[in-house]
């Protein structure tokens, strides 16, 4: 058992616990490298099937290559899929900084989906090394109906015992990738030969390190044209992964405010 084997086993265990605890689960799929690796592990956990729908919080602002990749994978892997349309930016908290506001559309979309579809468990591929507030997450995070998160009132979680029960009308946010790093995801993607959006690879000296909507994500300077080269690049770099995500860097508290409101 190497490091990736142990991470994979932990994730599969969490997915099975979430499936067992929930009567109507779903998994968020941003079509990026993390949620696609998570989708791959869901197929492992349920022996080739994915027994719940994959949900895209749809802002119609993803890059064209992302939509193309999505359609291909739905077809190839026979996925149950639906897109939850997010409300326009004019309907979100106007006190947030501009790019943060754009990201908050997804929070609103998620809220609408929970209200209308009554999912009681939502699996999300966030990782602790992405962002300091995400680092404070639990694997199983019970949420109120509006999805809000209180970082000070999280249930204890240890020895693999998770809080899997939620009060009526609330839901569980499940985070099976918290222990993974960006580097782990790429090494795993390479080892397992998992498909990925080609935008991650460099073209003309630029590549997307983190894929967000096109209005709030910018590519980074890079010559990494293969996964092996991405891995080599990550081993050497000290630039944070989300440097190309405008919203993270608007103000010190902007990501915390997003997360408290129920953002992923």
């Amino acid at each position, binding site marked *: 058992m190497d490091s990736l084997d142990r991470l994979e086993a932990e994730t599969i265990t969490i997915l099975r616990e979430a499936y*067992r605890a929930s009567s109507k689960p779903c998994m968020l799929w941003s079509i990026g490298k993390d949620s696609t690796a998570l989708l791959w592990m869901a197929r492992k956990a349920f022996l080739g099937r994915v027994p719940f729908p994959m949900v895209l919080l749809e802002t119609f602002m993803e890059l064209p290559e992302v939509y193309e990749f999505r359609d291909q994978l739905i077809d190839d892997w026979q996925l149950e899929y639906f897109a939850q349309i997010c409300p326009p930016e004019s309907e979100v908290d106007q006190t947030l900084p501009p790019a943060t506001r754009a990201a908050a559309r997804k929070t609103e979309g998620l809220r609408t989906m929970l209200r209308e579809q009554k999912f009681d468990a939502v699996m999300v591929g966030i990782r602790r090394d992405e962002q300091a507030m995400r*680092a404070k997450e639990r694997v199983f995070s019970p949420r109120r109906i509006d999805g809000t998160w209180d970082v000070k009132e*999280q249930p204890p979680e240890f020895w693999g015992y998770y809080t899997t029960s939620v009060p009526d009308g609330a839901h569980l946010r499940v985070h099976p990738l918290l222990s993974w790093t960006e580097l782990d995801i790429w090494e795993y993607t390479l080892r397992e030969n998992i498909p990925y959006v080609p935008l991650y690879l460099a073209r003309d000296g630029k590549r997307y390190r983190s894929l967000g909507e096109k209005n709030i994500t910018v590519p980074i300077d890079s010559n990494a044209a293969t996964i092996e080269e991405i891995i080599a690049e990550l081993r050497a770099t000290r*630039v944070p992964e989300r440097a190309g995500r405008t919203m993270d860097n608007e103000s010190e508290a902007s990501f915390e405010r997003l997360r408290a409101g129920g953002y992923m």
Partner: protein
Amino acid sequence: MDLRVAITGHVDHGKSTLIGRLLYDTGSLADGKAEEILASSERRGLAVEWSFAVDAAQEERDQAITIETTRVWMHYGGRRIVIIDTPGHREFIRNMMSGAADADAGILVIDALEGIADQTYRHAYLLRLLDVPEIIVAVNKIDAVENPEQRFAQISRDIRSVLETAGKPLRAIVPLSARDGDNVVNRSERTAWYSGPTLIDVLVSLHPLAPLSDRPLRFEVADVYRFSDEERISVGNVVAGTLAPGDRVRIAPSGATTRVRGIKRWPEDPSPALAGQAVGLTFDDPVFIDRGDIVTHADRPPLVATTSFDGVFFWLSDAPPRVGETLSIKIGRAEVAVTVIGIDETIDLGILDKVQPDESSKHSAFALRLRAARTVAAETGARCVLLRNGEVVGGGKLSTVEPVSSQRSDNLVPQGHLISSTTRAQRNGYRGLVAWLTGLPGSGKSTIAMAVERELFARGYFVYVLDGDNVRTGLNRDLGFTREGRQENIRRVGEVAALFADAGAIVITGTISPHAADRATARAAAPGAFHEIYVRASVDTCATRDVKGHYAKARAGELPDFTGVSAPYEVPEHPDLLVDTDASTIEASVSSVVEYLIGAATAPEALLSYSI
């Protein structure tokens, strides 16, 4: 595998600062992070606050404390180390536990100025209870004390004796300054008197524990899948040992044996399952297997099937455990209702002394005796958690596990009914239950019990009174009035009442049952269906009534061990219903009991699901 290191210790002893410094000195801070920390520190009028590397929440930065545990990755000498920050405030102990529980090593940070403080003791004890394999002590702020060498020697002696009490070996004690970086990554010239390793030297000498492949097999069943018409696949985790197709196995707690047909993975891979892996199994025989079962090799000693065990639990709730309280326990993937039969010991983790059971306080540890509602497979040393209404309130390890076979007759296999309690309840429109009336002799138990029986019968309920005296003329006529005889009397009444309730009846018992522990035993026989009703009346009122003339005899010294006069009555601390016959009439008491019981028997959740 990354080494996971938890940073623990008393509040303000410099845990987060040490982490920030480790990240900075090892070059693990992302570009821009050091600048962000400087800017954020300056905005708050502080000198460099390295703790902001982990204290990301606004409230944490404003109050300069860690609230929630967090994890960051550190890179050094080709190794990756996960640093787990934990809060030092007493209020956030559950967050400390959540962070430290799966660490490979714990660093206990001690302020050289303040020395050993309350949370130092607590965290030392918790690191032991959590089984964190290695402990390192960092004596921080060593630059700030006079005679640092002497101070270091003294703190080293103190902490060694604390950790000895906590039964924990110590890997190293390092004098350092987190703020200035002395002996963190770089050796300090200011501590020429210290020749031991720097903190990073100690960390890179450690390695994470490997999975337990060479131990006897333990496969914990998490679920059973049956997609479409295919065979049933038991999925779960190999927590120890290895498992190959063709192996003869035994399933605990049922004891059934069979052979492993296949190891199921996707994409297909039939190779043996190793410790640490999550796989699926199929079996040769159509054995009944469910979540919570444990698969072992058939040629090894079987796991103990038990309903009775003791354990030591650290407590995370404001409300301490109570004798007679029904909680739920998770042992591996099994979850079962347990009743607290007794609290043997309360341990205040702040001072590591044993205190009296009734001085129980928040954030202590408790040695509990537990009785489970159904048989589970368990081992001494098993880590488990206790839940109250779905919330984790305690965590700990089992210290003794009593096999079912020694509790009752050998080779006993409980037979499952084909009709569930829920089915019975749904057909009847109400569920069976035990109304356990307790109180002094003459308090009115029998009078109330008989009147309630008549009233419920008139309303169409299947109801029956198990009266203490009546039971003693038949079922319990072999029992005397010694402590043991009385105890056994109550136990039998409890078991019979539980059977009646399971059959769908509303059972009313009227026994003095003066001991809380005996009532807890009766409650454990009917978990979830047991309702303690305290029929209260003063000794004087009872003596005035004295229907059977016993009080007069007792007061004359002719009746030894008479409850209320010559023997104690332990008043129920948290009865489900209190009926005060001093203050209210018999009619009012009867109608309050009737109302309560109908409510309990017909509550919507009572009709949906419960288990006995």
